[in-house]
């Protein structure tokens, strides 16, 4: 086996919090003045957190600690030619890891060995100057990313063709549309020939067609035996590109494994927090109390509990219930799924959609399965109620809540891109008939 392309050993990164807010000499004086009078100097500063404010950082500051570990003892290897995904929630340390790997900032402890030329793509269009033409910016950008001037010259035609901006290459980029801008920027980075490519969520920009072109380009790059480190919130993109994935949680490496296992573990991190009152203990409920829902779980196809579902996957909502009487009266269940603004998305009503009659015993579990979940990414809330006979037995507004993340609903491998609102996806197909 060859040597790993990237080997990370006990990588840690600490941010000091005591220095927060002291960016000027005046702040510094204020800080010492407070200290001198025996007060907590941090009270003098309303602004907590750095430019990229993360909740964890602010929480650590408020808890009174003076430092914050964005990364702690992270270790893993990446083999040459491997495409590895880095996943984790916001503030888990993904960006910090990329910053350290692409040498933008230095680690506090630990070591990284990289074999091969590194190209990092943390944001497209870095260093673009609006006054300069597309051509001049390609040279500028290429050399910033580590290419030699003549390498850029050799690749110029290819880059321009990929970006589809042949006509405008000598126009200042300030006159470009944002789409053209992004296309050109990605084209430069995609044609850089590093042995190790570090990519942050750049794929989230641009239209779907361009996205799939980018994904295709990345797949090509990996086929050429280059190593790619890919960070994304987009599980579908991770699943289609990567063979392995690393799950970061609170700055630590929670898991390294196959994409399937890791993404499942990641979706589980979306589970509602313990702070939520269990639904069985909620008092803000309707109905006569004949039935009481006590707990719920969201499961995926493989019956594993998840907190976030992917668009297009099969999910099951399980509801545990207790019933006071075990009579034979037919029951009906009603679940209305709404988005964050509480606009109704769809309704599952057993009286219409269930062929037979539902009967509920003393205690048990109701399972509602939705194949091919038709929801766009976002947070959703379920208004649930249950009738026994004609009497409302239990009703909970926002009884169930869950997140939906990007998924390949249409089975085309193309993704929707960032910035949509919650909403419904509908299966459909296109064709063109007639014509010359």
């Amino acid at each position, binding site marked *: 086996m060859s040597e790993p392309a990237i080997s990370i050993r006990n990588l840690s990164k600490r*941010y000091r919090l005591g220095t927060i807010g002291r960016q000027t000499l005046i702040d510094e004086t204020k800080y010492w003045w407070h200290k001198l009078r025996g007060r907590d100097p941090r009270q003098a500063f309303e602004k907590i957190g750095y430019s990229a404010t993360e909740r964890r950082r602010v929480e650590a500051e408020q808890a009174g600690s003076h430092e914050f570990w964005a990364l702690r003892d992270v270790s893993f290897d990446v083999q040459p030619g491997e495409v590895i995904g880095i996943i984790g929630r916001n503030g888990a340390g993904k960006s910090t890891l990329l910053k350290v*790997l692409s040498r933008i900032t230095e680690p506090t402890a630990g070591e990284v060995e990289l074999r091969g030329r590194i190209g990092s793509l943390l944001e497209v269009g870095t260093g673009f100057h609006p006054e300069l033409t597309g051509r001049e910016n390609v040279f500028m950008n290429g050399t*910033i990313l580590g290419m030699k*001037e003549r390498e850029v010259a050799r690749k110029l035609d290819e880059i321009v063709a990929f970006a589809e901006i042949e006509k405008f290459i000598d126009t200042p980029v300030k006159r470009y549309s944002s789409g053209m801008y992004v296309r050109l920027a990605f084209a430069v980075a995609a044609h850089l020939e590093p*042995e190790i490519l570090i990519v942050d969520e750049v794929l989230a920009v641009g239209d779907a067609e361009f996205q799939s072109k980018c994904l295709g380009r990345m797949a090509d790059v990996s086929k050429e035996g280059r190593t790619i480190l890919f960070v994304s919130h987009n599980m579908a993109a991770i699943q289609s590109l990567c063979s392995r994935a690393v799950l970061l949680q609170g700055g630590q490496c929670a898991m390294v494994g196959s994409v399937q296992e890791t993404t499942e573990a990641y979706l589980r991190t979306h589970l509602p927090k313990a702070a939520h009152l269990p639904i069985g203990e909620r008092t803000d409920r309707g109905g006569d109390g004949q039935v009481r829902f006590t707990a719920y779980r969201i499961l995926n196809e493989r019956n594993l509990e998840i907190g976030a579902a992917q668009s297009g996957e099969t999910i099951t909502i399980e509801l545990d219930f207790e019933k006071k009487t075990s009579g034979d009266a037919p029951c009906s269940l009603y679940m209305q799924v709404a988005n964050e603004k509480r606009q109704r998305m769809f309704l599952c009503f057993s009286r219409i959609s269930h062929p037979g009659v539902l009967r509920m015993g003393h205690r048990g579990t109701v399972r509602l399965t939705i194949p091919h979940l038709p929801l766009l990414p976002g947070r959703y809330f379920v208004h649930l109620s249950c009738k026994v006979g004609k009497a409302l037995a239990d009703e909970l507004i926002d009884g169930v809540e869950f997140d939906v993340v990007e998924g390949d609903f249409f089975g085309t491998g193309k993704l929707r891109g960032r910035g949509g609102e919650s909403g419904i996806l509908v299966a459909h197909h296109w064709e063109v008939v007639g014509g010359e």
Partner: protein
Amino acid sequence: MQKTVIRANSPWWRIPFREIWEYRDLLMLWVRRDLTAVYRQTIIGPLWFVIQPLLTTIVFTVIFGAVAKISTDGIPHFIFYMSGTIFWNYFQGVLNHGATSLVSNTNILTKVYFPRLIMPLSGVFIQFAHLALNSVVFLGIYFWFLYHGTAMEPNRWVFFLPVLILQTGLLGLGFGLWVSAATIKYRDLRFALPFLVQLWMYGTPIVYPAKLVVKPLLKWALWLNPMTAVVEFSRYALTSRGSPELWGLGLSWGVTLLVLVSGLFLFNKVQRTFVDTI
């Protein structure tokens, strides 16, 4: 295959000269980008860089020459003030470029890696282009004065002028590195800088000859300012007038190297993690 090792606390004294050399294409493009962008944005383009020192010289000629009647060692006022102004502008330009290089390019520096020293270093070249342009104008005026038989003549020291220009660049770079490292910690330093530089200019024999300063202590202080030797020697080279002090030149180089080397080390130390605090 290229192997990169990223470690905590990389030594501050190891300046990545080899890496900078590998990125020389970027350095040159950076210089070109700055120049073309600057020239394209302004209406009168490069002319601005000629007009600015000319206007300064005219103002000095009127205020310090005609009104205050400060001695110029018998050198034509225009030549006296303009030679000093050109060197000072170069120094100040490199210094300002270096001082703001980290803070004003954060959007790039937080996204991509390249040797950070490229940024302040590019100022030495960008400002040199302006200096070259100004020198052409200056030499035209200089030769006009020579042709009309003004009492001044160049001497062997003119061959030393390139060394003085280099020294000015290095000096500006050295101080620029110091200030840029300090502005990472204290942002308001940036606002104080123009004022300090202005004061400094009056501490340099630009509107007065060094000869005027006679008190031993003041004289020492004047020559401790590394720009004093640069201005005095360049004037002497072109006119054979003034009071060049060889010991002052040595002292000036000593200060220059000290500032430059310490600036490089300090900058190298700060650049490792500066993105964490901006």
